[in-house]
């Protein structure tokens, strides 16, 4: 069926709603509070972009695959404390790699638990990953004895972490450069590789993909392993910036990551989505937080706004199909 009689402006707005939202937000806030466009605030926004984009990037794959992952809270926390703990025994490179591998393993383990349980509905996945999150958080608590770990107390060099956490190239933080590289790789992974395709097909219709000869269990574990890896990167970005890690560092990252993915336009129904769009979601959500701070909105009000944005995003997504 061909489309006719559509207003080109309206069509553009529909296709680029998030982008338009970002532009409107910038204009409105800049008028209300001119300091918003100042260099110091801009620096602030860019620095805030550290951990969340990684988490949202990983979450995009799980959601495209038709599932959801609440366990990243636990993964981020556990990877953070273990990485700091390993700097002294393994050195910073060893700790970094071990942290990333741990994240990948924990994600893969989520997938393994889910496929072994035969969890196939959203509700089952929701609760199992929530349970996994509790386990990971509890392990982090056991490991730290609920103390705050400080990377600055390490006896070995921590130059990689300090570079990631506080060095800029021009006004662009190093961590953002790393992120953009990862983003491009993951975008290509999604669009060009058979594995990326398998994840999307699984989200579109896992029964059909199974009958067409795809291994759904392996694909599911892959999607979760990707999310675990990205959560580990988020965790490292976070501990580099704040120089500490606790057993609850990862709190709220799951809701914010899901928020970014959905606001970006990846449907919670699975199948369709794009990592680049998720990044627009990240920008919108981060800017929204920043704008609300600049306009002196209370934290409670900010939470209300976040919730409202999520509801509106899902509403718009469902409207699209009419």
């Amino acid at each position, binding site marked *: *069926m*061909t*489309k*006719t*009689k*559509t207003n080109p402006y309206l069509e553009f707005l529909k296709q680029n709603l998030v982008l338009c939202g970002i532009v409107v937000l910038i204009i409105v806030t800049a008028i209300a509070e001119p300091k918003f466009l100042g260099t110091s605030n801009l620096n602030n926004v860019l620095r805030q972009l550290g951990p969340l984009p990684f988490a949202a990037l990983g979450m995009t794959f799980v959601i495209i695959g038709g599932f959801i992952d609440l366990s990243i809270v636990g993964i981020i926390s556990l990877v953070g404390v273990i990485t700091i703990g390993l700097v002294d025994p393994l050195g910073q490179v060893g700790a970094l790699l071990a942290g990333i591998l741990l994240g990948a393993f924990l994600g893969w383990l989520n997938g393994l638990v889910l496929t072994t349980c035969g969890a196939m509905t959203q509700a089952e996945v929701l609760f199992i990953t929530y349970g996994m999150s509790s386990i990971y958080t509890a392990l982090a608590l056991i490991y730290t004895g609920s103390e705050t770990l400080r990377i600055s107390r390490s006896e070995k060099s921590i130059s990689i972490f300090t570079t990631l956490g506080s060095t800029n190239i021009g006004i662009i933080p190093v961590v953002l450069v790393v992120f953009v590289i990862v983003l491009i790789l993951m975008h290509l992974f999604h669009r*060009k*590789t*058979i*594995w990326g*395709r398998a994840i*999307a*097909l699984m989200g*579109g*219709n896992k*029964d*059909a*993909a*199974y*009958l*067409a*000869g*795809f*291994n759904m269990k392996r694909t599911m574990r892959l999607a979760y392993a990707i999310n675990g890896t990205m959560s580990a990167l988020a965790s490292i970005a976070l501990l580099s910036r704040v120089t500490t890690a606790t057993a609850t560092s990862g709190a709220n990252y799951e809701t914010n990551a899901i928020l970014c993915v959905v606001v970006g336009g990846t449907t919670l*129904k699975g*199948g*369709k989505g794009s990592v680049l769009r998720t990044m627009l979601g990240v920008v919108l959500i981060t800017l929204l937080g920043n704008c609300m701070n600049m306009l002196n909105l209370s934290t409670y009000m900010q939470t209300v706004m976040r919730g409202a944005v999520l509801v509106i995003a899902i509403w718009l997504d469902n409207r699209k199909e009419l």
Partner: protein
Amino acid sequence: MEKTTDYILEVKDICKYFPGVKALDHVSISIPRGVVYGIVGENGAGKSTLMKILSGVYEKDEGTVIFNGETIEHTTPIQALRRGLSIIYQEFNLVNTMTVGENIFLGRFSETHGMKGTHKKAKELLDSIGSSISTTTLVGDLSASEMQMVEIAKALSFDSKLIIMDEPSSSLTSEELKKLGIIINQLRDKGVSVIYISHKLDEIFEYCNIVTIMRDGCVIDTKPVEELTRSDMIAKMVGRTIENEYPPRAHCVGEPLLEVRNLNTHKLHNINFTLHKGEILGLVGLVGAGRTEIIRALYGADKVKGHQVLLEGKEVKIPTPKQAKQAGMALVPEDRKREGLILPFSVESNITMASLEDLTHMGIVDSSKEADIGKRQIEALAIKTPTPETKVVTLSGGNQQKCIVGRWMERNPKILILDEPTRGIDVGAKFEIYLLMNKIVEEGGAIIMISSELPEVLNMSNRVLAICDGRITGEFNPEEATAEEIMDKAIG
């Protein structure tokens, strides 16, 4: 009943536009009280759109609807029900985890004064249509035809004056269909009108008094059924004449290709059969007899208790569909929307998804080769789609089915398994699927076909196996056997 000349429903000049399509173009129909009114047309002719407007799912753009003497501007499904217009969809609207009685009065328990009254009234309604289902059974435990009885009882509970049945027979066996016929006659005798929508013309001739033929959103003709012949009707539906519904049977049966020995699952018992090169093997049985289970077990989609499969004389293990695909098997499943297509994806992705591995080098999919495959199959099967990037969900049923067939044709399968290959697709597309089946066997492939339409099996297969209760109960040469003989074995 005193106003039998009166119309229960009059629809005048209804138009409905969807982005880029005129789904209904000045459609007018008048349905007298107490008749069975058939509506036929190919997929996409506008039948479902019209029914959705009547039942309040869609809003009309132009025209008037007069129901029971009352002009209706806006309606919602619940208002339509309360006025006495109910619709029974192909997919039933029942809650599987609730009882029959609860389903019939769902949301209206206060009207029946509690559960006791609910079950009592439900039983009266079921009795009135001659059904003996217990009202305390869970709907999930019922057969498809019993569920239909529940839907009809539910429609009657609203004191319906017009009941729309959309493809009511698609999940029924021929026995169950006979029962439905009796009930439809009873409804007519009570003065209830029925709109009967079906692709199966035999049913239209058997049950309907008046038939409207639709094509491309327009009413082509409305006539009493006696004044129409089958070929007239088909010609009007497709806008051209089709001499035969089936192409000549292919005769190219060769060497044994696939031998299945002692296939057992929790539903199947000692299934043994051989499939030959160039053969179309038809599996006949009632819904639930184990036809789909046989092919799913063979294809590695379900767990098997132990069996032996010989492909070209060599034993093969097929634990998952992936291995089945590698062994040269292909499956076009029964429910194309649930198991076949990835609906939000493009036509091209739906066609290429089974071939992606062959286009992949070091994990990277070659998108130009992928586009070639898409184009090739769209052309080869004459799939009607604006572009390869069009979402497959927007295509008609027949074209959707061709996308799944094309997905497998690209791999030149040795064994093509077709489960209800022509369900819910129109006459023209059916014929094309038949031609394609003949082409496959002429090129040395073999086909296992499951179909509930006996004429289709009789006309297309080289050999027919009757399945009953998870066992093979008979083997027939369809050129000699009659439909009755085969059904006798299938009923057991």
